[in-house]
């Protein structure tokens, strides 16, 4: 406490010393910045098309590898890399090997903004392919478009990717509104007169899904609308489930992430409430939701037998699917996906096996390979977009319906079939165990995010080309 006694004197000294210290610390700061930047600065060669050399093509993405969104979603980019490794092992695309750099943004848009600039301005990627998330990719949409960098096949079903304002951006999976319409129409047709309730995530995911449901289900039969907040999702959704039960809801339509599906089904079972569940694709992947049901039961004090039985809650759940699910082992696409993952991503396959996420990655990666092929021998960014707009519809992919890309439509699949999970269907077998499989209960249908009708798809369902099927 000495200093307070002769404070005045010390302050005087400080004033004498001030200028020197300012110089020092400012200089230190500036030097630090300079040092930091020179370490990283690399003289980027001015190629005619960024990221393209005679023997390689660099693409990049930002995905969550850590944080709350990582479980499951962290499998997609490595699975994409598996199909790229297959292409590279077979001579590459038009003689160029694909170099795929995926960086972890932890699902935080501020990180996405920085890392995407790193990929574009420093690593000189040709295109951003297969980046994940609505909030994260919204954050870089304007930057990528202003830099004229293709933002391809965004892993999100937001309705926001097809816009004339952002010609470089495009989605890939069916928009949530399309899923909502198809499932809504199924509810209207098969559960007429029953009371319907909604349980949705309180963001665009939930709202876009509801938009689709509302186009099909008469508003008079919707008696309860419940939401949850994804960022604070920690415990059972008991209140929402109790409200649905109290309102006498017989059919619950859900737009939920896998954890939320489990956190709704468990408290419902606990209070003896067994409605018909109709769940959007992302929230009903049995190899993802099944283990969650078991582990939450065990954490909640359930016995081992109860935990093992919890996966059975998925029996009877109705969902939708836009490519053959993993348990359909006779499907040639599923066989190819399994072979490619086994051979080109052995550690991923040992950990996750074939599930909704790894299948998704392989299918999306294969879509890009064809886009690159269509872009020709000397690809440019504009040429790639033009190729997708021109021939995207004829790309051969695992999807049930063809991709719907044109110069103005930047959505991928706009169709799906309704599937029922059932103990009588062949199970999905993964390294984590054997999970309930699904069977189709309706035809493959297509529609759009607007008021377009739902049409039964009459076209052909693709089969894998010979070069892919013969992979060994």
């Amino acid at each position: 406490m000495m200093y307070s006694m002769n404070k005045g004197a010390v302050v005087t000294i400080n004033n004498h010393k001030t200028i020197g210290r300012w110089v020092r610390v400012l200089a230190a700061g500036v030097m630090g910045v300079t040092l930091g930047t020179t370490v990283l600065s690399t003289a980027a060669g001015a190629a005619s098309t960024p990221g393209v050399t005679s023997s390689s093509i660099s693409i990049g993405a930002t995905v969550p590898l850590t944080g709350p969104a990582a479980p499951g979603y962290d499998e997609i980019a490595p699975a994409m890399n598996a199909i790229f490794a297959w292409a590279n092992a077979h001579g590459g695309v038009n003689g160029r090997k694909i170099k795929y750099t995926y960086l972890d943004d932890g699902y935080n848009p501020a990180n996405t903004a920085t890392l995407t600039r790193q990929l574009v301005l420093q690593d000189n990627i040709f295109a951003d392919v297969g980046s994940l998330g609505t909030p994260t990719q919204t954050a870089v949409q304007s930057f990528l478009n202003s830099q004229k960098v293709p933002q391809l096949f965004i892993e999100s079903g937001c309705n926001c990717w097809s816009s004339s304002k952002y010609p470089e951006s495009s989605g890939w999976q069916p928009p949530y509104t399309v899923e909502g319409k198809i499932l809504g129409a199924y509810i209207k047709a098969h559960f007429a007169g029953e009371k319907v309730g909604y349980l949705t995530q309180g963001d665009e995911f939930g709202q876009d899904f509801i938009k689709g449901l509302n186009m099909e289900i008469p508003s008079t039969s919707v008696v309860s609308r419940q939401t949850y907040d994804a960022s604070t999702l920690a415990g059972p959704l008991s209140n929402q489930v109790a409200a649905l039960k109290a309102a006498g809801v017989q059919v619950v339509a859900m737009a939920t992430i896998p954890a939320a599906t489990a956190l709704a089904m468990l408290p419902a079972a606990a209070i003896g409430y067994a409605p018909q569940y109709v769940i959007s694709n992302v929230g009903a992947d049995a190899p993802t939701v099944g283990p969650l049901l078991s582990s939450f039961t065990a954490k909640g004090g359930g016995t081992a037998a109860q935990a093992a039985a919890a996966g059975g809650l998925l029996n009877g759940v109705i969902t939708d699917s836009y490519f053959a699910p993993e348990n359909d082992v006779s499907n040639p696409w599923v066989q190819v996906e399994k072979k490619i993952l086994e051979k080109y991503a052995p550690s991923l396959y040992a950990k996750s096996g074939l599930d909704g996420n790894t299948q998704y990655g392989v299918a999306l990666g294969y879509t890009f390979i064809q886009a690159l092929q269509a872009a020709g021998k000397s690809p440019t960014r504009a040429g790639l977009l033009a190729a997708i707009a021109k021939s995207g519809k004829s790309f051969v992919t695992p999807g049930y319906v063809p991709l719907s890309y044109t110069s103005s439509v930047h959505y991928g699949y706009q169709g799906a079939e309704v599937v029922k999970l059932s103990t009588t269907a062949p199970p999905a077998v993964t390294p984590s165990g054997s999970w309930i499989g699904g069977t189709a209960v309706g035809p493959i249908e297509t529609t759009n995010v607007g008021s377009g009708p739902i049409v039964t798809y009459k076209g052909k369902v693709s089969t894998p080309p010979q070069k892919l099927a013969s992979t060994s």
Partner: protein
Amino acid sequence: MIRHLTLTLFAAAILYFVTSALSPYDDFLVGEIALYLIALAGLSLLTGVNGQISLGQGAFMAVGAYTMALLMTHTKLNFTIELVAAIGAAAVLGLVIGIPATRLKGPYLAGMTLLLALALPPIADKWNGTFGGDQGLTTTVPTAPGTINSEQWLAWIEIAGALLTLVLLANLLRSRFGRSFRAVRDDEIAASLAGVHVARTKVTAFVVSAGCAGLAGAFLGLSTGVVNTGEFPLTLSIQLLAAMVVGGTGSLMGMWWGAILLVYLPQWSTSLSGHFNLGSGVSAYLAIIIFGAVLIVVMMVAPTGIQGGLRRVWGLASRRWSRLSSVGPAPTTTAPTTTAPTTGSSSSRHVDDRDGQ
């Protein structure tokens, strides 16, 4: 005041040349350093100089960012006015939170500010019509003059904001307010006996700190190009606090180190893991591991942070030098020994030193 301004202009000139020489990507990172510097400087004032711990700096940043983005969406106001409004809105919330906070100390205050960081994002999700929900609100950087690329222009705006903030804070800390801040931190009873209004001083510190966070948040919104809740997770507030400790709690200039670490550590760790071909399971966590290691090492080697450590090294070196050069007749440069008691010389200088600069 004049000195601070001259030196700031000097720093601005250097940074002008640095940003001109760098690639657009590095300019972007320099801009990010500037914006984190602003948030850290405010936090350093609140926690280091005034002794109030806050885990809510990220929440104040969110308020500033949303204020600016809402004004950009609904009005055609001048950009500067939007920034001032962002600072103002965060400062008003700082006032609202600061008043009850005067009654809380230590972990209780940390708990209250933590609550703020947790409670604000759901509000934006709840009224997503206003706040844009998941997608958020888009922001636009004013058009760059001439042929300057947009990254460099953004960096200049952010650097200008950071230097202005540092000048104002440095002057504030040198004024009566600064002395009151420190007096309250060291001993509230003694401070009030000396005539310092303790509660008012604490609230002032809160308001100033929140205002800084508001500006930093607005800049983060500009850098990102969009403002949504995902940008302001709880980890942001915690990282800011940790970066402040590493830089040197209570120091303004030490915040340079904190900001540089926040921005460049993930970069370095990415190139490091690329260099050693680390698997994604390791590389994803490498930045946070290094950050933790740096925090531990700095606390062991230099408990007053990087800035405190450097100052100690500098002090030792200059004392040795002055001893060597004071063979001559008048040892004028060793003034401290004449005013400070010999026993407490280094520690007393140290305590007063870390405030302000």
